[in-house]
């Protein structure tokens, strides 16, 4: 008997908006001029937030912070496709997602300033508290998606993680669960080429990360993560597929971490300046700007207004955060269980 091919996979890459700001109109998702402007304003707002957070960290007003510079399109583009009712499972480098979902910005400063109360998600959103142990929240998204299906809710669960996260056992276990139970889940990996100092090639010998999905019985797609239209379209399609009962999707956003891993890291120890420089022309904000300029949606005046508006929002968030009363120390005990244990009831008297 001759050998036969019993399975073969094709891994797609989606690009819509190129570095010159031109789009492939056959792939361009339906977006009104106002929506495109809203996307751009969110990109600028997220970048303004990021700059301010770094600034506040240097002043000692925030703790260690993980910047998003370079990854804004992956975050805003995907979050723009989400409904408020969808469940989001973020890791720690997702400030663009939070901002696009309408999370109160002063609470983001509050969280990075070391106050858990910044993670009390407002009741009209379903954003899970930030996951610090890399990749371990992937099964949670699978579970929430299975639960949504069980309850007949038309929502999807979306997990965000990095290229490093794909090496964890929980990536495998979560993907496997989602595949077996055809969960309405969307897994979004921002492959920013680095996990602190470890390059993408050291995470996996696999040619793409996207292709890993196929072994769990669902589709993986690579998108240009600096192309907001491609990210938006891939996410929108994946959500539609999930909500119509056709199971999970894995989206690898191919992007780049333009700065240090966190404020506690020095990226010059492990990567070359010319690598970073080669990604500069692919900047996600610049690219959308060029597109809008060609369409007559962008002017110098609009740029200034957008920047000013962002600055006002961030200034307001910072002063709002500053006016919050410090937490009651006993809070660290109070929220362990629904009710205090007899021992905790004694311990909390220290405060």
């Amino acid at each position, binding site marked *: 008997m001759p050998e036969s091919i019993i399975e073969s996979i094709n891994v797609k890459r989606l690009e819509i908006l190129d570095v010159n700001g031109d789009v492939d109109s056959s792939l361009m998702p339906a977006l009104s001029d106002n929506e495109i402007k809203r996307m751009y304003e969110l990109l600028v707002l997220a970048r303004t937030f990021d700059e301010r957070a770094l600034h506040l960290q240097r002043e000692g007003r925030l703790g260690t912070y993980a910047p998003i510079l370079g990854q804004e399109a992956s975050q805003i583009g995907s979050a723009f496709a989400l409904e408020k009712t969808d469940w989001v499972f973020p890791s720690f480098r997702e400030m663009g997602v939070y901002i696009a979902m309408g999370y109160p910005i002063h609470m983001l400063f509050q969280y990075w300033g070391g106050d*858990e109360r910044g*993670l009390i998600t407002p009741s009209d959103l379903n954003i*899970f508290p930030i996951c610090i142990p890399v990749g371990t929240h992937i099964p949670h998204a*699978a*579970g929430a998606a299975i639960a949504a299906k069980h309850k007949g809710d038309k929502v999807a669960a979306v997990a965000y993680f990095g290229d490093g996260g794909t090496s964890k056992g*929980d990536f495998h276990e979560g993907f496997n669960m989602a595949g*077996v139970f055809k969960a309405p889940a969307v897994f979004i990996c921002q492959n920013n080429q680095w996990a602190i100092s470890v390059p993408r090639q050291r995470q996996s010998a696999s040619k793409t990360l996207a292709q890993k999905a196929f072994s769990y019985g669902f589709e993986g797609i690579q998108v240009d993560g600096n192309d907001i239209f491609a990210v938006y379209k891939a996410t929108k399609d994946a959500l539609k597929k999930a909500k119509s009962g056709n199971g999970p999707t894995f989206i690898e956003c191919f992007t780049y971490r333009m700065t240090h891993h966190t404020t506690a890291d020095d990226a010059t120890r492990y990567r070359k300046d010319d690598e970073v420089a080669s990604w500069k022309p692919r900047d996600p904000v610049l690219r959308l700007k060029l597109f809008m300029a060609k369409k007559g949606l962008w002017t110098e005046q609009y740029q200034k207004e957008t920047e000013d508006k962002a600055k006002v929002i961030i200034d307001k968030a910072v002063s709002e955060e500053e006016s919050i009363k410090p937490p009651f120390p006993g809070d660290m005990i109070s929220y*362990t269980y629904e009710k205090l244990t*007899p021992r905790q009831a004694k311990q909390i008297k220290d405060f």
Partner: protein
Amino acid sequence: MPEEPKRINMVQAINLALREEMQRDGNVIILGEDVGTDGGVFRVTDGLMKEFGPERVMDTPLSESGIVGTAIGMAVYGLRPVAEIQFMGFIYAALDQIYAHAARIRSRSRGRYSCPLVVRTPYGAGIKPPELHSESAEAFFCHMPGVKVVVPSTPYNAKGLLKSSIRDPDPVIFLESTRLYRLIKEEVPADDYTVPLGKARIVREGRDVTVISWGSMLHRSLQAVEGIDAEVLDLMTLNPLDEETIFKSVRKTGRVVIVHEAPKTCGFGAEISAAIAEDAMLYLKAPIMRVTGYDAVIPLPRLEDYYMPTISRVRKALEEVIKY
């Protein structure tokens, strides 16, 4: 008319608790390896898939971290998952999910989210299995603020405690002694009673010594105290610990023997001893004694009986403290 109570074993009592809770609340879901078609390797979930369907009794992939992680997502979303880990020795792969997430979600979100999850797992030695099927690792979970640890010792209490665990708003590790699964039968009412978490029970009253135990070792302790005026406590919930009941008994007897199957060093007996030393020291007439497993990897069946606290080891400790 409530049915006449039947004499059933612990497997049947747990099965009954699961069935009643699933009938009561459509959000209660079972997931784990072989829990569906096969009814679990100990048959604890027997018949449940047939009654409630594969969407509520889910045969999962072989994936301990995945089972607990998925159950966490379900619990936070609004279901009441009861996850089964087939043997306690395999729960180690899910420790990260339990400690890094289940235990912390309420605190991390300052009460915005909670994780009402039960992880059931068979524990302890005595059924002559391969390696890692006889673990007694309850102390790990007692050191995780945010998690409750429950260990029933009789069919009646197993049913009532499991029902309380499923209704509890926080994550519960529910340990089922494999040795006790079919050892004892007792009358278990088919009605909707619960046994509260966080409360110990006085199994036998006495004046000369307090014996503190849980799970399978409770029964050894009861055999060992014959002829001695001993008070025997069954903790049932290890965390949160019912210190009130312990201190009350110690104030009366002034002598304490703690019996557990897990290794001695950092076993839960250490916590109980320290608590007594802190709060009831002045009532003690004798040193606190612990009768435990050895500080060793629990051996394969040939040496298992040497590892476990025996009646004579418990007896010796009792005689020792009574000398004072």
